[in-house]
């Protein structure tokens, strides 16, 4: 404990020096922007070798414009609460400070202590600020994650999917990933979270549009629940079953032949009238092979989206240390909201995140094996259509 305290004290004094130096040494900058001040503060807290990349984008993985938008979203909720947070030196935190700390915690995946140290905060303050941000985002940002509600919006989605690899009338891609946790082995309640790959995990099911936007998510279920069970338990499944979702315009392929709206998914899902999975088996006829290739290429959108989600919001990447299992789904939701906001703001910073599709490494492909006859017909029709052998 002793050395740690000592080092903190040292950091504080260093920081004061830094502040004084910056205040007096750069008169030509004019009025200080929040970020200028903030970056100085955090850089002052870092040892020179470890100093953060000074660019806003590299610290928060988003542009300043997106950051300001997020601040405006949560302003009311973040500032309305009576208790105001303060830095370790007693200085009250502004809205931007709070949002910055929360975003840093979510995006870096660093521990509370590390984030706290780098921002000059007590680790419990980091925790509280982040949670307040999560609550505020849940309330204010949910409109960034919604099923397409208008026909033009859906038409655009279909058109973009068709451009990928020709799948007509496709409305989304469904996929599942696991958020891993480190839970105490001795606790019997941990057992339900132990998935088939022997990790403790929580499931995130997402339906993704061609821009890698999440359009529907389900999370919170234990990782042991298989993909199709999560689907079955979702409201999307019920709505589709009742014909209240994916019930838009049919696409006319030829005289007397139409295809309905559908989403695609991997073999971990059932083949349903509105959910198309690839053909199973080896040595398939060419038309089916071709269908599978196109299906797989289109499906990559969801894999990339989930990989990017985890890459950008690293708090849900890797293994979380004993998280609160009731809070974690809400953190996942907010990460998905932030993911969508970055896309909605057409933020160029997202392009800096390397594109990967490995979002669930170590997890094997599940096979559901349930097939609905209507789904079979639709898949065959699509396969024929895509292989060019569809009767005109």
């Amino acid at each position, binding site marked *: 404990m002793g050395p740690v305290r000592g080092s903190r004290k040292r950091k504080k004094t260093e920081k004061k020096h830094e502040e004084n130096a910056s205040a007096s040494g750069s008169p030509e900058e004019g009025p200080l922007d929040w970020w200028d001040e903030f970056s100085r503060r955090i850089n002052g807290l870092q040892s020179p070798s470890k100093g953060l990349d000074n660019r806003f984008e590299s610290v928060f993985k988003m542009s300043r414009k997106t950051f300001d938008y997020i601040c405006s979203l949560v302003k009311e909720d973040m500032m309305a*609460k009576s208790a105001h947070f303060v830095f370790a030196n007693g200085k009250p935190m502004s809205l931007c400070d709070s949002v910055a700390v929360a975003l840093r915690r979510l995006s870096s995946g660093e521990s509370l202590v590390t984030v706290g140290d780098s921002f000059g905060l007590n680790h419990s303050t980091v925790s509280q600020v982040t*949670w307040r941000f999560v*609550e505020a985002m*849940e309330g204010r940002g*949910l409109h960034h*994650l*919604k*099923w397409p509600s208008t026909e033009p919006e859906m038409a655009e989605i279909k058109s973009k999917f068709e451009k990928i690899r020709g799948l007509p009338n496709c409305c989304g891609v469904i996929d599942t990933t696991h958020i891993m946790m480190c839970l105490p082995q001795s*606790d*019997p*309640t941990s*057992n*339900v*979270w132990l998935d088939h790959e022997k990790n403790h995990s929580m499931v995130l099911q997402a339906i993704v549009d061609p821009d890698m936007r999440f359009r*529907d*998510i*389900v*999370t*919170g*279920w*234990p990782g*042991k*629940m*298989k993909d*199709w*069970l999560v689907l*079955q*338990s*979702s*409201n*999307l*499944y*019920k*709505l589709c*079953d*009742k014909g209240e*979702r994916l019930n838009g315009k049919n696409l006319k392929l030829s005289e007397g032949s139409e295809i309905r709206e559908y989403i695609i998914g991997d073999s971990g899902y*059932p*083949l*349903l009238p509105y959910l198309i999975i690839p053909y*199973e088996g080896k040595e398939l006829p060419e038309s089916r092979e071709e269908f599978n290739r196109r299906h797989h290429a289109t499906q990559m959108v969801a894999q990339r989206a989930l990989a990017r989600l985890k890459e950008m919001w690293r708090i849900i990447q890797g293994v979380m240390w004993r998280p*609160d*299992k*009731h*809070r974690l*789904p*809400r953190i*996942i*939701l907010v990460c998905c909201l932030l993911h969508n906001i970055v896309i909605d703001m057409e933020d160029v910073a997202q392009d800096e995140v390397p594109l990967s599709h490995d979002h669930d490494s170590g997890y094997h492909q*599940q*096979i*559901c*094996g*349930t*097939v*609905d*006859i209507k789904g*079979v017909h639709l898949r065959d029709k699509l396969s024929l259509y895509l292989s060019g052998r569809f009767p005109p």
Partner: protein
Amino acid sequence: MLCSVPPAGKSGSNWLDRLRSNRGFPTTSSDNNNDDNNDNLGLDHFLRNQNPSESTRSNSGSTQSDQERVANRTHEKEHQPQQQLYNLMSNVLSELFFMDGDNGNTQSSKLSGKKFPRKQTAPKSLTTSTTNNNTHLQREEEEKSPACTPKDENAPTTASFGSDNRLTKVKEGNVEAEEEERELVGYSASEVTVIDTSFGVWKSEKVVFRRKNVWKVREKRRKVRSFGRKKRKGSGGCDVDDGDDEIVGELMKKPKVSGSESVAGSNRGQNPQNDLREEVCKDTPDDLTQVPKKRFPFSRSPKKSGKGSSSVILIKGMLSSKKHGEKLLKKCHEDTRR
């Protein structure tokens, strides 16, 4: 009030006599002494005689003096209202015991030699259900073996995904709740917070019961109601998360929530068998309490605990959610017919 032990010299006491002599069971005479009209409603009478009009004949093969006594009594007082009451009671009893509805020959053979189990293996509630449901439950229990779990390797079937015809039973009140509790023995319970953005209420608290690959999902408030009880019973694997006591406590503090529990319970009861089994359409209970959840968004943060709405809204939500649940049930029926 107690029945007199049958006089000595009888052809050996049967189980009923022994039970009575140990004060374990009220007799026909004890309960009916005051009102002769009820004489026919004695338990042993019902057990031995399925039809009062045949009662005398049915005892012909029996050597039991006790039976004769009952038979004579019945013979004397046979009235139409009694018959109705009798039918009612025998229905009730047949729910609980194996009663073949046949004549005394079978009965005597049972008594004399072969032992048949008297109690139904899975007696069900007497309120609304029919006998068929009973066997149904048993069958379902059997099906809970891994055989019914998702077939990973099996060839694809053309079964309609999500069709389950066993969601039909509509039960109410505590009887159903107890049954459900019994059903969940051996399951491990975990409370989870589930977020589903397709719901108007995107966040809900659920209790997941799991045994091997069988999953059952219940709304959390339900567990709150029976929480203390369950704990006392100490049902093996029913453990709850660390933070759950706190959550339960918080919910219980809300009078509005507990006040609506009976409604919620009956709603949920509509689908006691909605298990998350493979190829089984799951979980209307989720729907059923979604709306009230909206009214009481749970937050572990004490800052949010002040939020709430009037109980009027809550009840309204309940009703609509019930309706929704019924709709879903209907849907499931349709699925099975398909």
